[in-house]
């Protein structure tokens, strides 16, 4: 197959040669051809040099399936989608550090690291036995290059908040020797977090590319060259990614992974994914919807569950009546039976959310604050107090001026869970005299209605948020970010602002804890959003795939330890 794609690339090159008007394309084809040839010859050499260890766990192909493509491929400089990040961090590329199960940083590409006394300079000592799959050694220049690339605004790195407290000037990152690199920073909490997320890119391949051109570079989806445990073998758009074991992966990090090949298949239909898992076509079904959970177990596969980093919430547009009134926002929360939402839409796989702080966070405060539990009568009293009463006996409350308490609850088309939430909320809010109209909007259209500060055309919207391990909710809650895309509520609360400004800078956890407590309470008082729940993420694993261990870090965390039962291979 690879031979075929190579021929194809050559053909493209010829085609471009002919009219000569697309030098960029010619470069891309040439780049990929060279990169793949180099990687093939280096890997062939490594395979010959390093025999597969004698252990029955080595060998076999594991097939992973999900509805989504790896949108950004291995292009770590522009990635915002979860799947691409997972493959970059754990499969094809390497990060400087990895979290263990307690979310403490452990050495990975970096052998060790240290900060100076006043936490203004962070120095990494890299491994010297990690090779890019084309044979080039991974060194400090790759790290410095990647850092400069993602902090350059021209690149449009999607997660600039990672480096809010790091130096962004040219001399803020320094290559001290081949395997030592340092960056400057301001002291802040959990400053190691970006380094477990950002995969390092090869400077010798991408160093010449202008930051603005990196998004369209063929490295990402056509011919990635990584340095991780799996080597890129093939990508067929909308169909599959194929990775092969890297025999040259450092022994100290576990050496060659057990699997010969790892295939990621894109299957857009969830019923098909389940059928594939249960008929043996898939070994791992990523993100099983909750109502399929029963079938996974009944069909003879194994269901794994873990706390995800997702938060589901309803954003009230506080720029509009009646949501500018905190009593109304509060009443709407009290009137929604979130436990029932968890039981029904999640089938019990999840927990009620009372603030943005998730259960896996060290400062998580369980249980609702005073007066936040499901209480439809309390909701009624609050609405009465705010002046919304049913004055004409039609079952819907009105303001003194006769305006009905009615609004539109919007969600994105194609999200069955949110559609269920919308329809359940519609029924529940109806019982306290609030008329809800539900509306589904196609995702791209919805985005333009939500994120543009000049538009903001919605009453209330069901939306989600992915929490980073180093929490930073300023985009959601800080009044400074009112013009930013994610300030969906747009309310302003000085106490929340102060906490949001302080929390990232308090390094000592014992000093930070009371602040986090206060932060979670303050969210409850302001109620800019109605936090619904933290869903769990489900994974279906076939009987023959062993060693899969999913947790909040993701599904691919220990992909190096996956192996296929030899009897079922």
């Amino acid at each position, binding site marked *: 197959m690879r031979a075929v794609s190579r021929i194809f690339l050559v053909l493209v090159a010829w085609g471009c040669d002919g009219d000569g008007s697309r030098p960029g394309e010619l470069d891309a084809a040439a780049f990929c051809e060279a990169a793949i040839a180099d990687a093939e010859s280096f890997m062939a050499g490594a395979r010959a040099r390093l025999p597969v260890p004698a252990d029955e766990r080595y060998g076999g192909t594991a097939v992973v399936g999900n509805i989504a493509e790896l949108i950004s491929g291995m292009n770590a400089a522009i990635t915002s989608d979860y799947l691409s990040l997972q493959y970059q961090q754990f499969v094809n590329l390497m990060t400087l550090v990895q979290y263990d199960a307690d979310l403490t940083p452990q050495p990975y590409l970096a052998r060790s690291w240290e900060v100076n006394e006043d936490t203004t300079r962070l120095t990494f000592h890299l491994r010297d036995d990690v090779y890019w799959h084309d044979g080039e050694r991974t060194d400090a220049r790759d790290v410095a290059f990647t850092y400069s690339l993602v902090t350059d605004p021209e690149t449009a790195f999607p997660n600039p908040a990672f480096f809010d407290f790091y130096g962004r000037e040219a001399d803020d990152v320094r290559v001290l020797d081949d395997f030592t690199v340092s960056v400057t920073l301001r002291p802040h909490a959990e400053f190691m977090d970006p380094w477990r997320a950002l995969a390092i890119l090869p400077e010798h391949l991408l160093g010449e590319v202008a930051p603005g051109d990196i998004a369209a570079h063929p490295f990402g989806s056509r011919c990635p060259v990584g340095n991780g445990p799996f080597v890129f073998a093939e990508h067929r758009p909308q169909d599959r990614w194929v990775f092969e074991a890297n025999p040259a992966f450092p022994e100290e990090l576990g050496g060659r992974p057990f699997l010969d090949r790892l295939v990621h298949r894109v299957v857009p*239909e*969830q*019923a098909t994914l*389940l*059928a594939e898992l*249960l008929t043996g076509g898939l070994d791992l079904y990523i993100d099983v*919807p909750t*109502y*399929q959970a*029963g*079938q996974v177990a009944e069909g003879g596969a194994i269901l794994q569950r873990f706390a995800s980093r997702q938060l589901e919430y309803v954003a009230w547009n506080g720029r509009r009546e009646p949501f500018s009134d905190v009593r109304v926002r509060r009443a709407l929360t009290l009137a929604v039976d979130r436990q*029932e939402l968890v*039981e*029904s839409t999640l089938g019990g796989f999840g927990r009620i959310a009372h603030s943005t702080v998730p259960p896996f966070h060290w400062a998580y405060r369980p249980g609702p604050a005073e007066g936040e539990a499901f209480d439809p009568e309390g909701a009624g009293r609050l609405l009465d107090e705010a002046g919304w009463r049913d004055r004409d006996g039609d079952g819907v409350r009105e303001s003194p001026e006769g305006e009905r308490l009615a609004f539109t609850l919007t969600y994105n*088309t*194609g999200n*069955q869970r949110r*559609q*269920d939430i*919308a*329809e*359940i909320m*519609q*029924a529940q809010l109806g019982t306290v005299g609030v008329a809800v109209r*539900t*509306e*589904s*909007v*196609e995702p*791209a*259209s919805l985005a333009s209605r939500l994120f543009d500060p000049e538009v903001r055309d919605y009453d209330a919207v069901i939306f989600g948020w992915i929490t980073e391990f180093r929490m930073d909710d300023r985009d959601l809650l800080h009044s400074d970010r009112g013009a930013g895309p994610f300030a969906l509520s747009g309310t302003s609360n000085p106490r929340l602002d102060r906490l949001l400004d302080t929390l990232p800078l308090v390094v000592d956890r014992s000093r930070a804890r009371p602040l986090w407590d206060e932060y979670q309470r303050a969210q409850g008082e302001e109620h800019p959003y109605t936090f619904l729940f933290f869903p769990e993420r489900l994974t279906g694993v076939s009987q023959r795939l062993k060693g899969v261990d999913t947790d909040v870090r993701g599904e691919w965390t220990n992909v190096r330890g996956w192996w296929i039962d030899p009897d079922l291979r």
Partner: protein
Amino acid sequence: MRRSFRALGLVLPGTPQLLEGRRREGWLALATWAGVGALLLWRRDRLNDALAGPWDLRLAVATAVVGMVGVWLWSWREARREAAGKSAGGMRWAPTANLFSERRLAVAGTLAVAVLYLVALLAPLLAPFDPGAQGDLVRERFLAPSVEHPLGTDNLARDVLSRLLYGARISLAVGLLAVTISVTVGTTVGAVAGYLGGRADAIIMRFVDVVISFPRLVLLIAIVAVFEPGILVIILVLGLTLWPSTARLVRGEVLSLREQDFVLAARALGLPRRRILARHIIPNALGPVIVAATLGMGNTIVLEAGLSFLGLGVQAPLASWGAMVDAGRANLLGAWWISTFPGLAIVGTVLAFNLVGEGLRDALDPRHRE
């Protein structure tokens, strides 16, 4: 003897026809009358608040009453006409009607379509539950078919049968209105192009070509994205993307009719063009249009289902059959009834329309006559 038949018809419609040996019509009238009557009797509790109730309940009751009275009137008049020895129907369509009624499948299709529209109109009386009412969300979701819920419950513990009955209204309304739009526009454009000929024809048909070679899905998705995908938008979009094929068909018919003797004669008489077109050409080109329209009903219902499959159909909580299939598809392996029954409803309905369409085609097409 005849007189007493008629008297019987006053009590039980259909009986005069039965006694005269017109069994098919007799049984049909009697069954419709009795069925609707039984329904009203069964649902008499809902009749009390019908007058003050929602419009659809009022419409359902009105349909039932009008239906019963209509059958009764028909039976009585038929019996009287029979007595007077007159034959039914006009001359023009009689051969077609006869050919059509000889085709049992086509007749079955027609009956099925009639029943479907009746069901759609009577849904508020037929449905055992409120289609939007959610049951106990923890215990009553995904219930398999049972006596209480003959077709099971869905992801929000709603009764699938009730939703199916109400969904008929949306699917059928979408089909009917969209086809009306496309046939009206298509016939007008096609007839004008075909009759005028020359440059006007060329320009119009080039435009039709553009619309036909347009990837329809792009248009559908884009338009649905621009406007909120309400039921009216869906109808308009489907109607306005389907007309070009009708236009082509009509133009072809008109081109051949234009040269025929009776048109030439009309022209020689100096009749105005508009009159020739409206009185002589279009009526004679209508046969294929009716066939295309009937088949188009089926196509439109399938297309609407396809849009729903992409999540772009009619909005919740209204549920077209397509939207119901869509909502149940991810849980197809666990709760097959949610997607399967609305799917079967679509197949049955579209099949009925297609049978009627085929029957009409055969009946109108002289080639198919023995």
